[in-house]
């Protein structure tokens, strides 16, 4: 399992951890403020459970789960994420297959291709974005779903998740580690 910026965790260099920390210069990465964020570069592929306590920009490929409970995640224009994603704020510019849980907001930009379900109190989508799935806009349902996510790591009950057209019936078991 990858852990990014976890408090008390031993420092890891970029070579060991598989990501780099930088001040991103892309338009997408500037929208969440001037602070540094971790970047998973275009050549990086991660298959597993990715957790962290700092903002993250994904320009590479990630499969599994991504959990940044108090931070923002940006899936950059080159990013390909096939995972369920939990974060405070989520910005999508690239390819995303999986469910998105944003405790504060989810923003889907026009370059994005998303197949999955979105649960967040604030959802916005730019015209031109490709989206297939469900957008939960009922505040009560959003609160329940996001609260469930903050209590534990259990995936939401399959029966409560709307099915995505064309998405495989069985969700593959999550992998831990790489």
């Amino acid at each position, binding site marked *: 399992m990858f852990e990014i910026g976890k408090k008390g965790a031993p420092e890891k260099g970029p070579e060991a951890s598989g990501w780099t920390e930088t001040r991103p210069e892309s338009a997408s990465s500037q929208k969440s403020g001037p602070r540094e964020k971790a970047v998973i570069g275009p050549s990086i592929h991660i298959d597993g459970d990715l957790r962290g306590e700092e903002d993250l920009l994904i320009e590479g490929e990630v499969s599994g789960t991504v959990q940044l409970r108090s931070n923002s995640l940006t899936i950059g224009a080159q990013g390909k994420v096939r995972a369920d994603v939990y974060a405070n704020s989520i910005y999508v510019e690239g390819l995303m297959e999986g469910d998105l849980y944003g405790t504060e907001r989810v923003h889907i930009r026009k370059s994005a291709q998303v197949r999955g379900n979105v649960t967040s109190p604030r959802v916005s989508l730019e015209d031109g974005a490709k989206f297939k799935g469900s957008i939960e806009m009922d505040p009560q349902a959003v609160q329940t779903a996001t609260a469930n996510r903050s209590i534990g790591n259990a995936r939401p009950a399959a029966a409560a998740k709307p*099915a995505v057209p064309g998405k495989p019936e069985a969700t593959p078991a999550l992998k831990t580690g790489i």
Partner: protein
Amino acid sequence: MVADLRPLGKAQAEGPEALNAPLFHSLIKRLEGGGRWIVLDLGAARSDTIRTFGRFRCRLDIVDLAEAVGALRDVTDPRLLRQLVDALLPRRGPEATDVVLCWDLINYLSAPALTAVMESIAVRCKSGALAHGLVYYSTRTMPQQPGSFVPLDDQRLINKGASGPERPAPRYSPEELARCMPRYTVERGRLLRNGMQEFLFRL
């Protein structure tokens, strides 16, 4: 839920004509009555649609069926059509659909494809679910591809995608629609000033 909005730009405001859509308005009024609603949008994801339905306790299921219109047009076998359509629609979950937004998609489906689509949708809907659609009726042609109808406000729709070459419209009559959609009844129909007929179907 708060949907972020961008005001219509000048070009958009001066572009396609907004349509008064009284039956769409009546649908919105029902949603304003409260409760939770499951809305199935057969069109592409659009910010204006998300904004409109984001005011309500809604789950918006977006299918973007327009992408598959070409593939459905080439198939005539009803069983194969049904299989294709079932694969395109979300599986029926614990919450059945209350409202279906067909927009102008009906015009781009052959009669067998229309039957397959609406039958597949029916099994995912609650009894009494409503389907809203726009049918080219008095006009003989229509855009080559399905449009991008979106709510301009609670009473008006606008087609942001219509331009370019046109093709003959099937001009489905209410009787033909009844034959193609036997499980639905026309709750109300209105002729709009652009030659389209607006329908509210009830399951």
